[in-house]
């Protein structure tokens, strides 16, 4: 294979989904959804956008028609009407009906988002200035705990090194979860309010010091999903990303085993008394 072939191979590889499939970056619209909730949110947003677009074209069609045709310079003579009860009732009642149509799907989604019952795995996420802590509380992986902080090197931020692909959206230890399982996330914070946000999951929940709040997601596709802290939390608010790796059941089991082995190695006195 010549050089041209290698370049073509690289070029193709950049399109072929790898083991850790990276989401294509969203640029104009909401990120590609990977949970049912995020899917519903995207559909609702599209629907709203279309409705708003129709109203926009209607209202401003009329206004710009007047702007271009009812000009004094074109010899227009002003009419004198200044009220019309029927019209005024119509443009009060019709918007109410449109709003009811919008509220219906939104209500269903709100109720679904709030249903955190019967999770397969429960993870507690704690916001710190400026990193996240994860504790696996229940389900496969129970007992695993670690901190997750920005891994982008300082030189990239200060401009003395070229910026990587996942600039500011990469961490040392990502949250790892299995695909297709209901993950309940309990949130709290240690200092100030933070907010745990993964756009592809349609999940954003504030982490409030002294209180526990919860949310959930069920990722339908393996891959790496990236988000940020979404509540101003001080100096490095912009530098505490959220990264979630969604793995197949087998790979997740392997990851859990690896974490347990690491924990055992790190504290032999606990798991193997008498030998340390």
């Amino acid at each position, binding site marked *: 294979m010549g050089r041209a072939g290698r370049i073509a191979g690289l070029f193709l590889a950049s399109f072929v989904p790898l083991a850790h499939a990276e989401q294509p*970056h*969203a640029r*104009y619209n909401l*990120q590609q959804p990977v949970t049912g909730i995020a899917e519903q*949110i995207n559909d*609702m*947003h599209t629907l*709203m956008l279309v409705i*708003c677009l129709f*109203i926009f074209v209607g*209202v*401003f069609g*009329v*206004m710009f028609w*007047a702007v271009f045709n*009812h000009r*004094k310079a074109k010899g*227009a003579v*002003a*009419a*004198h*009407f*200044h*009220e019309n009860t029927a*019209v*005024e009732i119509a443009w009060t009642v019709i*918007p*109410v009906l449109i*709003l009811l149509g*919008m509220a219906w799907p*939104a*209500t269903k989604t*709100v109720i679904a988002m*709030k249903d955190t019952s019967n999770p397969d795995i429960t993870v507690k996420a704690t916001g710190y200035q400026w990193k996240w802590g994860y504790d696996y509380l229940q389900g496969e992986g129970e007992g695993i705990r670690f901190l997750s902080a920005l891994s982008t090197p300082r030189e*990239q*931020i*200060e401009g003395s090194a070229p*910026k990587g692909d*996942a*600039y*500011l959206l990469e961490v040392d230890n990502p949250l790892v979860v299995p695909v297709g399982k209901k993950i309940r996330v309990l949130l709290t914070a240690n200092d100030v*309010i933070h*907010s745990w946000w993964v*756009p592809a999951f*349609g999940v*954003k929940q*504030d982490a*409030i*010091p*002294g209180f526990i709040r919860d949310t959930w997601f069920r990722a339908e596709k393996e891959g790496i999903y990236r988000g*940020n802290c*979404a509540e*101003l*939390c*001080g*100096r*490095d*608010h*912009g*530098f505490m990303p959220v990264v979630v790796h969604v793995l197949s059941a087998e790979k997740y089991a392997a990851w859990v085993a690896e974490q347990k082995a690491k924990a055992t190695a790190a504290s032999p006195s606990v798991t193997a008394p008498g030998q340390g």
Partner: protein
Amino acid sequence: MAAVTPEQLHGHHAPSGLMRWLTTTNHKDIGTMYMVFSFIMFLSGGVMALTIRAELFQPGLQVVQPEFFNQLTTMHGLVMVFGAIMPAFVGFANWMIPLMIGASDMAFARMNNWSFWLLPPAAILLIGSFFVPGGATAAGWTLYAPLSVQMGMGMDLAIFAIHIMGISSIMGAINIVVTVLNMRAPGMTMMKMPLFCWTWLITAYLLIAVMPVLAGAVTMVLTDRHFGTSFFNAAGGGDPVMYQHIFWFFGHPEVYIMILPAFGIVSQIIPTFARKPLFGYASMVYATASIAILSFAVWAHHMFATGMPAAGQLFFMYATMLIAVPTGVKVFNWVATMWRGALSFETPMLWAVGFIFVFTMGGFTGLICAIAPIDIQVQDTYYVVAHFHYVLVAGSLFALFAGAYYWLPKWTGHMPSEALGKLHFWCSMIFFNITFFPMHFLGLAGMPRRIPDYALQFADFNAMASVGAFGFGLSQLIFLVAVVKCIRGGERAAARSWESAEGLEWTVPSPAPHHTFEEAPVIR
């Protein structure tokens, strides 16, 4: 102080120079001072915004460090809200309400002086906080606890500044309520009042209702900071989210405080240049009142991500969606006023039509944000930044410019330059959209707000927004030139400066003499 003698009242022996402005009780002088003050604050807040946009021009940290960046976003918000937009509207109220209702002055002329002169010390505290150890507060303009409890002494200065500005606003609002209710000329019934007076009357009630709530919220932060209380500290039995409830109980009516007078100004201008009476005057009044009442029942839509129960989310979602109805009525009424009119597009009309067009886009994004599940995605992103700049810049600020060009002839006695006014309009309109339209895409794609640095996929739109922001900022200097030119000279303005302008303000000469309506006019 001795009683005011008739000579002083008639200005023959009134103090001159600085003392004239310090001691004036004349609503026109005070209105002018409010507007000059707000323009200075507008430029200061603008410089902060441009520093923010310079940092965000490309990924990486180049211009400022994160801590100072947070100070800039915080102070930009506080200065623009409390220093620029609100005082500008109070300035308009001072100048125009007595002229519109045929009153000789505001009801409480000395209190009027005091409400203005509280503002410069507050501004000095606020801007001065940049220079104290630790710098200005960096907790965001919402000053959320417990982050605001962590801040340095700049936070305390901001709290005192807010207290002082709040007192000023409350006094100004009481003055407006009493003036409108008691000092209308004979025959000027409430339902004959110009819509600007109606919108300001309702706004004044909102101010009286919510400024004390803000004062309470920041005072609790102050005592949590220094006196060992735990209002917002869970370890002491408090709740950080309670701060947000109190703040937004103020904060949501506050956003209508900044837009209702703008509706009033636009409702004065559209009929003049359509040469046709305002369509649906009564429904405009009712719509304004409905918006004001609803504004007290929607505050927690700013808090969908805090984790309210489903019932709470649904209530605040429905209430917020309802606001679209009276707001829609207003837009339909303006369009119906223009329909089959004889339109001409002098500078004030351009701004007013521009206002309707761009403000309505902010209305649509507001409706989208009202949908709780969608808001979960866009809360605290650039989508929200785009939304509220569409309603606050293209809404409030554009209406203020419309009003300024509309009434400049009455204030100065000269017609403002159409060429400069139109140049200002088109530059502002184009650069505004270059700045803020891409922010919708940034927010949807996942860029959080209040960050000094961002992931690479956001680079193009950020660069575009920064270029637009500098264009927009520089365009505002055109306004300064236009106003200075208009004060210095230009085509003499007639008493009725615009062909078919209606209202008592156009029955007095231009410029309006120092004292007007010493004898109340009678309205048929």
